[in-house]
């Protein structure tokens, strides 16, 4: 178990966004979180690397253990946590820098300055996301010339450069066309051999295609969490069935 969430409640001021969440995420699997807009999927994802800290009124009760460490303990090193638990967003957020500098950004923050080492990291990371062959001759060009799919791959490469353990993906394909989506999904399936992936998605079929386990959320509650096969062929909760079959939500 790489993540264990126990009795988690999250509040934005008086509004309770997550209600008594209990969840275990297993290593080297893809865990999908599905549910209608506003159900708390992204909020839950942001709990794992404490991105919700950026919202002043947000506070939690309960515990979130990531890799045997209580991430809400005052002793938790936030910088280390965010290195270990990287995040990919809906729209690729490549920096207005060169392709090389985008990937080298994280390692430089971690004080790696040796050119040779940086080149190695950049090459390895770009290869891991299948982008190296496409961009190896234009590493000095701006990342913003790349297609959206390439930019999303680049953002994933930028995460891999700091050697994380967990990748959080918040609807990583929602800005991509079906072909590009297919390629990013293939990438995720390859990456899960080395990393643990948690993906929030609105696309039910995407969860069905790539996730090993799926959690369905509704109004801040985790209604059901099970193997993907079980969720899609025989969900226990009627509310899960109604949502995944498109009868509400």
């Amino acid at each position, binding site marked *: 178990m790489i993540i264990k969430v126990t009795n988690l409640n999250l509040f934005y001021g008086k509004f309770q966004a997550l209600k008594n969440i209990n969840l275990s995420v297993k290593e080297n699997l893809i865990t999908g979180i599905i549910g209608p807009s506003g159900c708390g999927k992204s909020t839950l994802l942001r709990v794992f690397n404490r991105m919700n800290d950026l919202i002043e009124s947000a506070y939690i009760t309960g515990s979130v253990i990531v890799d045997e460490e209580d991430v809400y303990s005052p002793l938790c090193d936030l910088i280390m946590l965010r290195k270990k638990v990287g995040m990919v967003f809906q729209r690729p957020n490549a920096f207005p820098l060169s392709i090389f500098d985008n990937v080298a950004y994280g390692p430089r923050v971690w004080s790696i300055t040796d050119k040779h080492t940086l080149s190695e990291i950049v090459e390895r990371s770009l290869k891991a996301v299948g982008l190296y062959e496409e961009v190896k001759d234009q590493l000095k060009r701006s990342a913003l010339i790349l297609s959206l799919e390439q930019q999303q791959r680049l953002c994933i490469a930028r995460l891999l450069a700091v050697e994380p353990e967990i990748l959080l993906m918040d609807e990583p394909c929602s800005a991509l066309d079906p072909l590009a989506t297919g390629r990013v999904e293939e990438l995720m399936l390859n990456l899960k051999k080395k990393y643990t992936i948690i993906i929030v998605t609105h696309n039910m079929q995407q969860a*069905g295609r790539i996730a090993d386990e799926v959690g369905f959320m509704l109004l801040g509650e985790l209604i059901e969490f099970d193997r993907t096969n079980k969720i899609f*062929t*025989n969900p226990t909760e009627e509310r899960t*069935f109604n949502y995944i*079959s*498109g009868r509400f939500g």
Partner: protein
Amino acid sequence: MGIHFDEELKSVKKDILQMAAMVEESITKALEALKKRDNKMAKTIREIDHQIDKLEIAVEEECIELIARHQPVGTDLRFLIGVIKMNNDLERMGDHAVNIADCVNFLVEQSRIKPISNIWTMAKIANEMLKDSVESFINNDAVRAQKVCERDSVVDEMRNETIRILLTYMLEEPEKVGAAISYLLVAKNLERIADLSTNICEDVIYIAQARVIKHHAEESER
């Protein structure tokens, strides 16, 4: 997915039930022909079978289209997968009715043998099993379906007994081998109809409860 999809599922159910009704009619007519040694019924049974074959293709296409267009999940998915399998089983049952009618055609040219009550008992049970399997599908009733499955071994046992009886007849009166073989084939076809009713009930249990009971799958998982 919503009201329209539900309507399309209802239409699939209506079609598969129409097919079941035609199969029941075909089997009833085949058994009637056997009882009356009426070789004129075979033509009607073949005509019904032709309709069943056409309907089988139509139902299969309906299911494939719904799966492709709606990517159903949960009970909707299990329903469509179950119907595809039932569809196939019902079509096979129609073929067995034709086989029985063919046996009658052959039988009327043969000298009569002593009546074999087992055949009629098997026919009655197989017919009831088919009716009950269809009823359990209509009502999504896994308990009733399970009971149908339990009767399959009774029919198997009766078939074995019928084979023993017919073998004795053949040894005692070799000139009646032709008739005995016809009854043997009827017994075999009835036993297959009972088997296929069991298959339908296994599909009903899968649709209703997502349990796979065929080949004792649940026991081997334990």
